[in-house]
């Protein structure tokens, strides 16, 4: 081996702690990058493969009842390739072992051939026989949640008639990758099931013979989607169509795509922080190395080594550290990416999983991190290359310190000498001080920004489930009924209070923009659903006109006083102009509210309700559930407690694991920054500290002088990091904002506290490691030589 290369390895061995810390930071950055990119790719690939293989539809339309012959008309629409007419109904399911009522989606499948669109992946059992109207398939997660298998039965209330249905198979469908029940915020496999039944059997149950109420379409590639949607709506309007939607707005697909977007934003926010810090540390360590070795560099140049050789020598040093980080990061990223993809596979149900990260993710991540490290190395390498041999051989004079301005001098007066040493070190290299503090604050910021998710979720739960939804149960009716049902419901066991609400499917138009959304009617003095804005102040319900969430107002571009055209998509389908009476900010959804009576007047359907919210006595819940399961008019039930539990569970679990990793990454970051800072200080000031030991200072006293500097940098970094963490949280919340959720930036004091505590722990750990070297400081050898 060339002696110069041997020198690299000796240097690396000597600086292994520092090199390792840098490599781990590179690895963290690469890890997050590879993780999010490969999970993103796996999710994209899997979804795409799934959609393609199982013919996921491009357009979906819901109607009330459309005669079969209309299919031909729909097929004639320019751009439509295939149409799959079917029946889709909500109905409650009763599983014997489960006390609560379960919401079910019943979807018809052709009896004699597989559906042309939204085909099923049969996971167990067989397809229903066309001669057996009671045979069904259920979706796999639902089956798993209740340990149901082919051969078992469930009960369902189909169109008011109790039916015992025989499970013959389990299936998955691209339509229900994210199987979310009506009125809920996330998939709950135990409380929401998808049931596939033969077309004839379901038609018979709902009196839809020779008719369909739902259609899926596939389009020819490149078809103008907007005009296709319009044509479909034109045809279906008279059959009670409530507006066709494109795949992008299909709920399950929307969630999958949204998740992919979020991965993209993780990939673009987190890794740059780590790689920037790695670049800075590379710069610091290399600059010190080159400075110590300037005499050797001069000597080698005097021997005839070229500037380029010397530059390349130090670049190799950086490349080796970086390569170690990249390789560890690849492994970590692959493993995390795989873990994350499996987690998605659990949340989103796929019958197949494509996890084959392309090599370009690895090439890209390595290129970026090596690029960043080289940028960090530029300064030191240029210094090495430009050192003239003679200059390099000259011994350095003591580093210059500046005299303080009179203000600072007055301050310094009151300090003892050891503290003055710390103070002057901090001020001597303001840029290094600043960057080191920034490195510390970056780790605080990463922690604050990741821990704040828990605060945000708590806040959302509190906001939505405690402050807004005061009811225990929400019951949606199959059809709007007279408000007398309130009394019927109030008589049920354990019910303590009931309020009638109204939800009306509508399309809101303002100018050229429009949007489908249910208009919710709330009673003027309602106590069970209390509206308030994001700041927590109660929002009064206007007596007339619409109360519009700001998210919806943004979508429509409408403001207070504007008249929005409300195209009602059910009943008599009136089209009315209603003024926006007020706008308020919400965290969840894009809701539009109206006073209950006013809404019913608009619909010309006085005293009708289709949504009942109630408070009940928990001791009676068993009995209550039993009764509700038997009510034929009930389409679905949402229990608040279950929703909260699920929210906590689903989000909490994955969040905790992610947070664990971010804590690890952030600790690495803080450790790397501070350890390197202390080691470099020790290297620069070892002689000084040895002198102080000779003068009779104790180990503790010189530790104060060495670690005091790092402590000051840390103390500057902590509050700065809290501020940056807040900014990062705001930035990330913006990136994660969707129409469904707006992540609130609420950061508890304890979150700042924990973040700083983690960083302080890292600081102590690095100080402990350096302390071992400080104790071993060799007094004699330091004094024998010139630096």
């Amino acid at each position, binding site marked *: 081996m060339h002696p110069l290369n041997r020198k690299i390895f000796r240097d690396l061995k000597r600086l292994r702690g520092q090199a390792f810390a840098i490599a781990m930071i590179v690895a963290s950055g690469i890890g997050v990058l590879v993780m999010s990119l490969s999970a993103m790719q796996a999710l994209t690939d899997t979804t795409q493969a799934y959609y393609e293989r199982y013919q996921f539809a491009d357009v979906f339309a819901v109607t009330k009842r459309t005669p079969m012959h209309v299919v031909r008309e729909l097929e004639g629409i320019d751009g439509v390739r295939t149409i799959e007419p079917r029946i889709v109904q909500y109905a409650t399911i009763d599983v014997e072992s489960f006390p609560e009522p379960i919401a079910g989606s019943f979807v018809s499948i052709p009896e004699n051939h597989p559906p042309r669109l939204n085909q099923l992946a049969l996971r167990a059992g067989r397809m229903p026989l066309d001669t057996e109207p009671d045979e069904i398939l259920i979706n796999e997660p639902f089956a798993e949640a209740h340990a149901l298998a082919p051969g078992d039965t469930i009960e369902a209330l189909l169109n008011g008639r109790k039916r015992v249905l025989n499970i013959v198979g389990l299936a998955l469908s691209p339509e229900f990758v994210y199987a979310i029940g009506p009125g809920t915020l996330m998939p709950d496999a135990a409380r929401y099931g998808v049931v596939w039944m033969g077309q004839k059997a379901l038609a018979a149950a709902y009196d839809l013979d020779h008719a369909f109420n739902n259609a899926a379409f596939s389009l020819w590639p490149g078809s103008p989607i907007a005009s296709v949607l319009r044509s479909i709506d034109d045809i279906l309007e008279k059959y009670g169509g409530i507006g066709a939607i494109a795949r992008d707005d299909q709920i399950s697909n929307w969630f999958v795509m949204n998740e992919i977007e979020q991965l993209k934003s993780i990939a673009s926010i987190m890794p740059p922080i780590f790689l920037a810090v790695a670049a800075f540390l590379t710069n610091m360590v290399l600059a010190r190395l080159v400075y110590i070795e300037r005499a050797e560099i001069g000597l080698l140049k005097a021997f005839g080594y070229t500037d380029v050789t010397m530059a390349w020598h130090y670049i190799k040093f950086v490349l080796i550290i970086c390569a170690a980080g990249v390789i560890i990061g690849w492994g970590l990223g692959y493993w995390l990416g795989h873990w994350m993809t499996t987690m998605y596979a659990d949340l989103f149900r796929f019958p197949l999983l494509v996890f084959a990260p392309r090599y370009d993710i690895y090439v890209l991540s390595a290129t970026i991190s090596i690029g960043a490290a080289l940028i960090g190395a530029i300064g030191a390498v240029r210094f090495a290359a430009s050192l003239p041999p003679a200059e390099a051989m000259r011994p350095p*004079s*003591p*580093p*210059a*310190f500046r*005299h303080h301005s009179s203000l600072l001098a007055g301050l310094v007066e009151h300090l*003892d*000498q*050891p503290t*003055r*040493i710390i103070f*002057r*070190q901090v001020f*001597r290299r303001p840029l290094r001080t600043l960057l080191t503090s920034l490195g510390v604050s970056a780790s605080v910021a990463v922690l604050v920004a990741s821990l704040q998710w828990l605060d945000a979720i708590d806040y959302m739960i509190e906001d939505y489930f405690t402050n807004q939804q005061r009811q225990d149960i929400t019951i949606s009716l199959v059809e709007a009924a007279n408000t007398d049902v309130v009394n019927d419901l109030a008589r049920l066991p354990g019910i303590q209070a009931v309020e009638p609400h109204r939800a009306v499917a509508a399309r809101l138009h303002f100018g050229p923009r429009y949007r489908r959304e249910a208009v919710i009617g709330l009673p003027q003095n309602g106590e069970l659903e209390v509206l308030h804005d994001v700041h927590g102040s109660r929002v009064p319900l206007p007596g007339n006109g619409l109360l519009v969430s700001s998210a919806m107002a943004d979508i429509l571009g409408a403001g207070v006083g504007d008249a929005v055209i409300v195209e009602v998509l059910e009943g008599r389908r009136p089209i009315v102009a209603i003024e926006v009476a007020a706008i308020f900010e919400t965290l969840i959804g894009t809701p539009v509210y109206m006073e209950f009576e006013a809404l019913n007047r608009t619909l010309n359907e006085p005293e009708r309700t289709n949504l009942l919210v109630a408070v009940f006595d928990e001791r009676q819940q068993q009995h209550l559930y039993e009764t509700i399961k038997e009510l034929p008019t009930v389409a679905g039930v949402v229990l608040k407690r279950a929703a909260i539990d699920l929210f906590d569970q689903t989000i909490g679990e994955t969040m905790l694991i992610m947070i664990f990793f971010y804590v690890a990454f952030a600790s690495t970051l803080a450790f790397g920054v501070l350890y390197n800072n202390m080691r470099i200080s020790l290297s620069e000031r070892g*002689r*000084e500290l040895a*002198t*102080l*030991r*000779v*003068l*009779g*200072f*104790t*180990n503790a006293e010189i530790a104060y002088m060495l670690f005091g500097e790092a402590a000051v940098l840390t103390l500057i970094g902590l509050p700065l990091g809290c501020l940056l963490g807040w900014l990062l949280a705001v930035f990330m919340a913006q990136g994660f904002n969707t129409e469904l959720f707006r992540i609130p930036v609420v950061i508890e004091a304890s979150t700042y506290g924990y973040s700083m505590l983690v960083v302080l722990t890292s600081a102590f750990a690095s100080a402990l490691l350096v302390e071992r070297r400080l104790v071993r400081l060799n*007094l*004699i050898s330091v*004094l*024998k*030589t*010139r630096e």
Partner: protein
Amino acid sequence: MHSKAPANLPSKTPKVTLSARDLIKVYQAGTVEIRALDGVDLDLYEDELVVLVGPSGSGKSTLLNILGGLDAPTSGQVFFRGQQLDLENDAIITEYRRKHVGFVFQFYNLIASLTAQENVALVTEIAEAPLTPTEALSLVGLGDRLNAFPAELSGGEQQRVAIARAIAKQPDLLLCDEPTGALDSKTGILVLAALEQVNRELGTTTALITHNRSISGMADRVFRFGDGRIVETSINAARVPVDELVW
């Protein structure tokens, strides 16, 4: 010319500040044993100034480091005012250095981030009955450069700050390892004059290593080293004033 309580006057019984008995220091360099000290016995008296000379590698620095509590001998004892020093105990020898010993080295080892005055204050802050930094610096002729940083001082000035720092706590023992080694003769004389003045005015027991034989004239006693032993001890009848030394 003057002579003040030198050890060679039998009329008085001068007090012993420091004594060493049978000091042996062995370095293990691979398979080779280097006996840096090979049985050194030595007494240093109050007020006296001794010079240690001898060829390179003969063990002078090793001895001084052990006497100053920077290093421990392989065997042998060191007594400070009759009390044996536990040279293996870091807390005890740190305390010993802090209270009783002042060091001056060839390389000045000033704290670059502290001014001249602050470098001295560094020591006076932890000493029991120190001079003020200004007094100490005036003693070495630097009363007017109090606020200069080391980078702003010449080599000789830096060394004199180092001496001021070493004597400011009024140590019982001042150990100087080639204090003029990095200086030209004119500057060297200034530094030696400062050392001599401190020894005279404060009565500090001073041991000084030098390669310059002519410096020996300023000492009360001269120890010549060879192969880890003191091979010759000579007593000067009278100390030559520093400015009369022939360099």
